């Protein structure tokens, strides 16, 4: 049986708050149990750094079960690491080998400025949703839930893009730092459902405009986003958004 623990060399992006640029710094991760998650490995490193009276690595994380979308870093050039459909918190150290060197960088995009180390500001994604990623319904006036039957296939199709966790890995993975998969997922979910149709045209126009304003890049169909999406959301959602956009603009 192989050893239960491994030793690693980390090269971590360190950037102080307010610093325009950071640098990769090397530290050791010793005796890492293979059952740990990647974030638990960083916990161990941070615990050691703290004991050595050095500043621990700042990184975002919360639920640690792959659903909140808070965590994320680029590991050896791959957002959320190399495992498919896996968030960083669900990436386990058994996928690494003893002696590996791991380079950890933050999401990089003009729209995601670095706050500190691996922590970036993703409020741009909230701003895109504010531009129309919802159905305008006030609390209180809804008819009975079953008064509007929705074909199962439609509901299931809407669920697929609705699974987006808003982690921003698509932007990080995109060679152009484009947010098309994120926007496409929300536009698709709401345009598929009959409840979302009344404001579908307004929604897609306004969300796309907001996305452009915020400094994301343009989509060039490189499909890196769908390859890295921890929820496996496909560029079919982008194509659907494009259709919705043309429908909205040319009619």
């Amino acid at each position, binding site marked *: 049986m192989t050893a239960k623990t491994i030793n690693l060399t980390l090269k971590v992006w360190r950037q102080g708050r307010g610093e325009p640029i950071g640098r990769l710094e090397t530290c050791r991760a010793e005796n890492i149990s293979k059952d740990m998650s990647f974030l638990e490995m960083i916990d161990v490193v941070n615990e050691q750094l703290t004991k050595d009276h050095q500043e621990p690595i700042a990184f975002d994380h919360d639920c640690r079960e792959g659903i909140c979308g808070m965590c994320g870093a680029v590991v050896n050039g791959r957002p959320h690491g190399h495992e498919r459909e896996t968030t960083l918190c669900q990436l386990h150290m058994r996928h690494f080998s003893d002696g590996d060197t791991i380079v950890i960088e933050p999401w990089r995009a003009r729209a995601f400025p670095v706050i500190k180390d691996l922590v970036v500001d993703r409020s741009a994604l909230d701003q895109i949703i504010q531009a129309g990623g919802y159905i305008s319904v006030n609390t209180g006036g809804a008819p009975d839930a079953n008064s509007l039957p929705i074909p199962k296939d439609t509901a299931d199709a809407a669920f697929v893009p609705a699974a987006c966790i808003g982690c921003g890995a698509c932007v990080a993975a995109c060679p152009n730092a484009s947010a098309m998969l994120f926007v496409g997922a929300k536009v698709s979910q709401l345009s598929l459902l009959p409840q979302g149709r009344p404001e579908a045209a307004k929604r897609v126009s306004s969300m796309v405009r907001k996305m452009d304003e915020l400094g994301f890049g343009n989509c060039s169909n490189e499909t890196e986003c769908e390859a890295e999406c921890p929820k496996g959301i496909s560029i079919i959602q982008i*194509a659907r958004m494009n259709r919705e956009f043309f429908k909205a603009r040319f009619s």
Partner: protein
Amino acid sequence: MSWFYDTIRTSIGKKLLMALTGLCFCLFLIIHLIGNLTLYGGQELFESYVKHLHALGPLIRVAETGLLTLAIIHVSTGCFLVWQNWMARPVRYQVNKNAGGRTIGSWTMPYTGFIILIFVAIHLSNFHFIDHDRQTVFQAMTATFTFLPYVIFYTLAVVVVAVHVSHGFWSLFQTLGANHPKYMPAIRGLGILFSLLVAAGFGFIPAFVGFIMN
């Protein structure tokens, strides 16, 4: 028309411009290729094709103007997109790794595009902007393709076009919103087939003209 301007200046609008102009160029490539295939039928067949083409007169001028406009749109939009995309990530990654989405065709689009632009300029100066009273296209061609460096350059350039098209073809469908799990694999396949066809169809011409016909 402000709605139109508003539309095409969005990121999706610019992509639409690239896709539509790209689609036109794909169609142009098909027509161009069909015309050029007459070469394999010998000098006479080819020259009669050229004659018929030139007989279209003003229509040719319209087509040329159209192609030039498309090229201006395609190239200027492309340049703008490349610049914007570059700006969207001011600090680059220290380690870059492909997750399996990118292809040679996709990541080289700006570079192959630039090479194609130069190639088209040379190509036009070789065969188009010549004194057609002193020299027929066929003569110009045989003159060019007996010179080995030109043969190599043209053949490689055609391969670059094929690489560009290998991403451009399916990509324009995606941009136009035509992505469906049932049909996308076929479109992807067609794109590969089309780029191979372009590579083979155009690619053998220089050698054929230079070494076989002569």
